[in-house]
């Protein structure tokens, strides 16, 4: 076992992990942070998307020990009841969640996009979400919400 030190949503943690433990297992099973979802476990669906030092990654195929000393942001750190992030408010406003399973990952992919490109085009939003699958196929509303959060008239 190895000791992993990381920050999640601003809070420091120290956990014991194996050489092949994933970041997703650490978040969900060790820390009880269940916003990132277990979907495909092959890096295809994006339900586990989180930011590591501001960069979008798929937590299911991120070896936990490669995150040692880094900062992780999950949907729980994006906003809270009473203090929601503009993206979360826009998702609510635009009915951008159906079953909700993909939503945490969609929000984190959107956050990564807007951090780098605050005024994206619709095509840039679609490209930024290309690694996040919505099984309900509610993509149009999700793009609408992100455009709205970016200050565009969707």
């Amino acid at each position, binding site marked *: 076992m*190895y000791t992993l030190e990381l920050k999640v949503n601003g809070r420091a943690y120290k956990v014991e992990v*194996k*050489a*092949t433990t*994933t970041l997703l297992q650490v978040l969900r099973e060790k820390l009880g942070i269940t916003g990132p979802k277990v979907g495909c*476990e*092959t*890096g*295809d669906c*994006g339900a586990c*998307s989180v930011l590591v030092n501001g*960069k*979008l*990654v*798929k937590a*299911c*195929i*991120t*070896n936990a*020990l*490669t995150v*040692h000393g880094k900062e992780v942001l999950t949907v729980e750190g994006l906003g809270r009841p009473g203090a929601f992030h503009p993206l979360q408010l826009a998702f609510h406003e635009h009915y951008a969640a159906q079953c909700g399973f993909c939503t945490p990952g969609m929000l984190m*992919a959107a956050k*990564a996009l807007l951090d780098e490109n605050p005024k994206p085009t619709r095509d840039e939003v679609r*490209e*930024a979400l*290309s*690694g*996040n699958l919505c099984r309900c196929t509610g993509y149009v509303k999700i793009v609408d919400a992100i455009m709205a959060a970016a200050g565009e008239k969707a």
Partner: protein
Amino acid sequence: MSGGEFYRASSVQEALDLLAKFGAKAHVLAGGTDIMVKVNRRQLAPEVLVYIGECGLNYIKDMGDKVVIGGATPFAEILRSPVVKQKLPLLAEAVAHIGTPAIRNVGTIGGNLVTASPAADSSVPLLALGASVKLASKSGERVVPLESFFKGPGETVRKPDELLVEVIIPVPDKDVKFAYHKIGRRKAGTLSVVAGAVVFKAEGAAPRGTAIARDQACYFEKCTQARIVLNAVAPTPLLAKKASALLEGSALDAELIAKIAKTAAEETSPIDDVRASAWYRRQASEGLVKSLLERIVA
């Protein structure tokens, strides 16, 4: 899956020491986009992981007539690089079609090559540009042209104690013609059914916009430095040597385009898999090479 060991190399030297010590037991971990998928699928239980993501192999160097990319450089950085955009537009175009943003943020150029999937996305532009890889071990370094690097699915000439430290890409002349296209089952985040690139240097371009019927035109009087590459249609990414030889030194017209495309398809040895049948891949290879050449002459 328990009992595996994890080592974080803080320098290339340390990585090479670890590979020398553990040999074939060691799996080199960079972005993990291939290794961790295999771990999750219970296809791999590595005895030793040597993590090289933070050992100083993340760089893009402009050396004038070549660009040198560190083995652990993620695709997102290659895509963002002004040097790559300006000097290696073919590589930039192909990298934009690799995986999805989160995959490109961590997946590395060296990892993509060493994993040696017949569908390796970066292999297509790199083979077409005549790239080489530098392999380092405790006992020294060697530079291997990419066309002699792949041995079969998942197999390369890399020895267990060697690390792919650099990809060396010659900068093509400014007037070199190129085209790239990837055929997948969907637009984004997909593996190749077949992807291809065509690169050549043209001399004596026929006048454009003349009344000459397109199918009678000689588009270029002489083509040199010809390289035609396809992936996912052979045990390794394929430099189509016979098709490239047809183009080399030749005048390019519609008849030759058809012949080159047919020859390239004959050089493939595809298999049936979940993404496409062998029959489809061969047809698609011919159509792809034809359309790439037509795109250049259009």
